C-alpha cells in the first residue's frame, strides 16, 4: 500500500517534470506563451479548431505537415462542399514564413474567420465560397513564431539546428526556383540563410507538396512590413512573362487596400528595390504561371517595424479584406464557362 502510494507520487512528479521539460526543450522558458492580442501557435490552433467545429459544413482543418520541432502546419479549407475535392478554382493565403512578422498570422486568420462567419449571411461571401475553394495557412513557421514570442521578438527564421551552434533557415529563401541566387546567404548565422539545399526544410516541403497538389489559381503570402504589393520575379529584374497581368492585379489590390483606411501600399515587381531568390511566389509562379503576391503589411517604416501595436491588427485586416476577396473573385472569373 505504502509502495503504491509512493509510486503514484513518483508518477505525478514525472508527469510534472515532463510538462516542464517539454516547455524547456521547446523554448527555454516555462509557462504559457502569450503575445497579447496577437495569436500564438496554441491560440491559433484553438481558434482554428473552434471555427471548424462551429462551421463544419464549410470549414475543415487539416495538417499539411510538421515543423522541425514537430508542430502541425495547420491549413483551413473553406468551401461549400468542404469534404469533397471539387474542380473549383483554388486560392491560397499564407502567413508567417517569418517568425517576427506577427501581423501576418492575424490578417489571414481574420480573413478566414470573416469568410466563414459571413457565409449564408452576406451574398457576396456566399458566392465566393460556393464558387471557389479557399485555403488559409496562417502560420508556416510555428517554431520560429513560438521562439519569437518567448525568447527573441526579432527572430526571423525557422528553428533548424544548423549543427554549428547557429539555428534557423530563412524559409522565404528556401524554395526551389532559382534557389541560391542573389539576396540570400550561405552563412548559417545570417538572417537570410537559404538552407543547405532547395526545400531542405520540412515547412517548405509541406507547402510545396500542398501547393503542387492543390494547383492554385492565385496566392497571397503575407509578410510585414513596408506596405507593398509585390509580384514575381524577385530573383531577377527581368519582367515575368505575365508582367502586365500581374501588375494590373497588384495595382488593383493596392488600390482596394488604400480605399479602406487610406494606407498606401505600393505595388510593383518584387525585384524593383533589390533581388531576392528562393521565395514562395517566384517558385509558385514558375511552376504554375499563376498570380502570386507577397503583401508586406503595416507599418510603413522600421518605427515601429515588426512591433506593430495591437490596435492596428483590426484596421490592417479591414484594409486587406477587400483585396483578398477580389483576388478570390478574379480566380472565379478565370474559370471557363461550361455550356451544354
Amino acid at each position, binding site marked *: 500500500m505504502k509502495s503504491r502510494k509512493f*509510486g503514484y507520487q513518483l508518477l505525478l512528479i514525472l508527469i510534472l517534470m515532463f510538462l516542464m521539460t517539454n516547455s524547456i526543450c521547446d523554448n527555454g522558458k516555462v509557462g504559457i506563451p502569450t503575445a497579447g492580442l496577437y495569436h500564438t501557435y496554441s491560440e491559433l490552433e484553438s481558434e482554428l479548431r473552434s471555427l471548424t467545429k462551429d462551421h463544419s459544413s464549410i470549414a475543415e482543418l487539416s495538417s499539411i505537415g510538421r515543423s*522541425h*520541432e514537430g508542430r502541425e502546419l495547420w491549413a483551413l479549407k473553406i468551401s461549400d462542399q468542404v469534404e469533397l475535392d471539387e474542380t473549383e478554382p483554388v486560392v491560397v493565403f499564407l502567413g508567417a514564413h517569418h517568425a517576427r512578422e506577427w501581423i501576418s498570422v492575424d490578417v489571414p486568420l481574420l480573413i478566414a474567420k470573416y469568410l466563414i462567419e459571413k457565409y449564408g449571411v452576406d451574398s457576396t461571401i456566399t458566392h465566393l465560397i460556393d464558387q471557389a475553394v479557399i485555403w488559409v495557412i496562417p502560420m508556416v513557421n510555428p517554431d520560429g513564431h513560438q521562439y519569437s514570442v518567448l525568447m527573441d521578438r526579432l527572430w526571423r527564421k525557422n528553428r533548424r*539546428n544548423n*549543427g*554549428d*551552434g547557429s539555428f534557423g533557415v530563412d524559409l522565404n529563401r528556401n524554395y526551389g526556383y532559382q534557389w541560391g541566387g542573389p539576396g540570400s546567404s550561405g552563412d548559417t548565422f*545570417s538572417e537570410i540563410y537559404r538552407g543547405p539545399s532547395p526545400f531542405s526544410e520540412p515547412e517548405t516541403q509541406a507547402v510545396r507538396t500542398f501547393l503542387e497538389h492543390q494547383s492554385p489559381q492565385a496566392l497571397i503570402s503575407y509578410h510585414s512590413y513596408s506596405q507593398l504589393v509585390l509580384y514575381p520575379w524577385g530573383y531577377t529584374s527581368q519582367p515575368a512573362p505575365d508582367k502586365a497581368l500581374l501588375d494590373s492585379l497588384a495595382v488593383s489590390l493596392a488600390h482596394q487596400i488604400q480605399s479602406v483606411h487610406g494606407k498606401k501600399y505600393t505595388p510593383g515587381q518584387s525585384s524593383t528595390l533589390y533581388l531576392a531568390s528562393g521565395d514562395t511566389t517566384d517558385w509558385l509562379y514558375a511552376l504554375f504561371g499563376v498570380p502570386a503576391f507577397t503583401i508586406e503589411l503595416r507599418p510603413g517604416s522600421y518605427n515601429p517595424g515588426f512591433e506593430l501595436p495591437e490596435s492596428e491588427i483590426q484596421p490592417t485586416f479591414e484594409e486587406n479584406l477587400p483585396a483578398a476577396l477580389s483576388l478570390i473573385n478574379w480566380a472565379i472569373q478565370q474559370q471557363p464557362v461550361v455550356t451544354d
Partner: protein
Amino acid sequence: MLRSSILIIACVILAFCQSKQQPHQAAGPMLQKVYYKSPEEIQRLRDAGAEIIVQEPDYVVIRTENMVQRLDMKSQPIQETDLVQRLVKIVLKDSSDLQAVINSGIDLWQVIGDTVIARAYDIYIERLRQAGFTIDIIAQNASKMEGRIR
C-alpha cells in the same frame, strides 16, 4: 509493474527532449566563443586566418576547428545569445549599391532614400566598410532595441 511503467515514462521523456536538441546535419566547423584579454589576441586570431563574426568587449565569435587550441586561448561553443547583431545605418553611394549590401547577408529592415537600416553582424559591417560603405552603429545590440525603437 508500476516501477517498470515509471521507468518507461522516464525514458520516453528523456528521448523526447534529446530528439529536440539533435542537429539535423553538421555544417562544417563549429562557431566558437573565444575569450580575449587584449586587442593583440584578436590580431593573433586574424593572423591565423580567423574571420571575426562578432566582437564583444570580452569575447569574439569565430568559426574554427582547432585554431584556438593552437593559439592557447580559452573558448567554448557559442550560445545563441552570443551572436549579437548591431542595428546599423548604411549610406549607399548610389542605388545600385543596395544589392551588394543585401548580398552581404545583413538583415534589411528598411531603405530610406540612400540609407539602409539593418541588423548586421560585425563580419558584415567590416566587409561592407572595406568595400567603401559608410556605416553608423545605431545600437550595439539590436535585439535589446525591442520595444524601444520608437
